Structure formats: structure tokens, C-alpha cells
């Protein structure tokens, strides 16, 4: 039963859970908890349509395909099998954790080769939205960041005004 203004959370399902890799199991729990974290995260998940493959740098036989299907997110181990045209992200545990926890920019990790990403140009917006959805955000971070940006802008404005005023003295 869902209350007014709150919609059903997308279902997160791990295929062949009994024999799943640890990465698939961790991602399954992570996505379930992310979807449950807030209505905004649930909405972001519902808006995603497409697939992404996450590969472990520690073991090339570990790869998980995540299919975002609106009301359902499906995870499946794919190992070394070909994954078609789905975009893929490969990184070690720490790099993936740093991206999802917002401690590092995916672009910086790609530049330093800690994260390897393959995608078609048309898939780039989807990939960014997936990373945005997966990023841990407890809801308190964004207002704090906005306040900090606003404070910096006000300080810059005050400095500019002081400089301009001193020029016209």
C-alpha cells in the first residue's frame, strides 16, 4: 500500500541470486537501498531505461549487467560474455566506491585510468544519469553544497563591489 504522493518503488531483482557473484550481490543490495533511500532516488530510477555493465578490475570474469526498465531493475552476472552495445564501466572496488560515494569525479578517474568506460556518444547522457542515480546522497549534502556556493558567490560579489568602489574614490 502506498500513501498519497508516494509511488511504488522500482523492484530490484537479482537473477540466479543463489549462484551470483559477490559484485552482483553487493550491487543488488546497493541498488535496493538506493531506491529505498528517497522518493527522488526512486523517481530517478524509474526514469532510467537502458543497460549498463559493471566490470570488476580485480577479476575480469566478474561483470554484472544492470538493466533499468522503469518499474524494475534487473541484475545478472554476465562474466566474460559479450554484452552487445551496452555501455560498460570497469574499475577496482575503491574507484567504483569513490564514484558512487561522490568522493571522486568519474571524469577524473577516467583521466587517471582508474576507471575505464566504454560507450557510444548517444549513450553518454544515460550513463551520466545512471552515475547520478547511484551516487550516495543523503539529501543533506545538496542544500549544504548550495549554501556553500551561495556564500562564495556573495563573498565574490562583495569583493567586486569593494574593488569597484575603491576605483571610483
Amino acid at each position, binding site marked *: 500500500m502506498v500513501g498519497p504522493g508516494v509511488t511504488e518503488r522500482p523492484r530490484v531483482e537479482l537473477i540466479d541470486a543463489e549462484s551470483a557473484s559477490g559484485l552482483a550481490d553487493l550491487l543488488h543490495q546497493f541498488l535496493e537501498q*538506493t531506491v529505498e533511500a528517497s522518493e527522488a532516488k526512486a523517481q530517478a530510477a524509474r526514469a532510467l531505461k537502458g543497460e549498463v555493465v559493471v566490470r570488476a578490475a580485480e577479476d575480469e570474469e566478474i561483470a554484472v549487467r544492470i538493466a533499468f526498465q522503469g518499474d524494475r531493475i534487473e541484475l545478472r552476472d554476465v562474466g566474460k560474455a559479450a554484452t552487445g552495445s551496452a555501455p560498460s564501466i570497469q574499475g577496482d572496488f*575503491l574507484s567504483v566506491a569513490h564514484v558512487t*560515494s561522490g568522493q571522486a569525479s568519474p571524469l577524473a578517474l577516467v583521466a587517471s585510468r582508474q576507471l575505464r568506460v566504454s560507450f557510444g556518444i548517444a549513450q553518454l547522457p544515460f550513463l551520466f544519469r545512471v552515475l547520478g542515480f547511484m551516487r550516495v546522497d543523503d539529501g543533506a549534502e545538496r542544500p549544504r553544497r548550495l549554501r556553500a556556493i551561495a556564500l562564495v558567490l556573495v563573498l565574490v560579489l562583495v569583493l567586486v563591489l569593494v574593488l569597484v568602489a575603491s576605483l571610483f574614490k
Partner: protein
Amino acid sequence: MPAIYSDAWYDDMKTLINGSADFKKLAPKQRAVMTLEVVGDGKSPYVPSGKELYYLVVLDGGQVTDYRPLPERHDGKGLGFRFTAPATVWENIAAGLLDPITCGLRGQIKIRGDMRFLMQNADAVKILVDLYGQQGQTDWPQGKPPYP
């Protein structure tokens, strides 16, 4: 040299972790409670098949405040994480023969808990599990892994 799974061995682990400047810097400041579950798999000479050992680890204020055996499986109340693996896997990690992160990714160690917290504190987790494998002072009275 304390024997594997002895109280002294876990005391040494606690001292090793709390002596790590890197861990102190990166450890979560909030309290985190976890259990390590060691499942007898018929290969380990230290944990008979069908028997399980349970250890409680409590992190608080960036330090390990408790690291002790439990008489039975934790009921889950107030528990942040449960790490479960066959005894042979834990012992190979303790002997420095297996990488604990890779074991987690392969599913050799089952992890249950708040994955968002785990991701946010991945650096501390990495140091913690690496220290488990760098415990070079372990005595193996019934033989050291790898087992035949």
C-alpha cells in the same frame, strides 16, 4: 605468536588496527557494529565441518573498541554488517594468500549490510581487511594454508 582464532590473536588484530594511522584518518566516526562469521568447511583444521565461529567487531570514534568472540550467531539487532565465509577463505586471507576484496567480489565472502555506508567508507574497509591479511604474527599449530 598467538594462534589463529585465539583471544590473543584477536587482541593483536585490535592493536594492529588501532595502531594504523591510515585507518584512524579514514575510519568512520560514527559507531559501526559488524560480525565475522567463520563457517567450518571440512578443509580447515581449526573449525570442524558443521561448526561456526562468530566474532563481534565494534568501531566507534575511528577506533576498534571491541573485537571478541560471540557465543552464538548475532541476532541482527543493531548490527551494521555481517561478513560470512568458509574458514578456509578467512584463513587464506589471514595467511596473505587471498585478497579479501577479490573474495568479496567473487562471493567467497558474503556481505550483508548497509552498502551505501560501505561505499562511503570503502577506504577504511580496504585498510581493515588488508590488515587482516597482514597479520604476520599468526601461529598455525595445526598447519598453515594452503591446505592439501
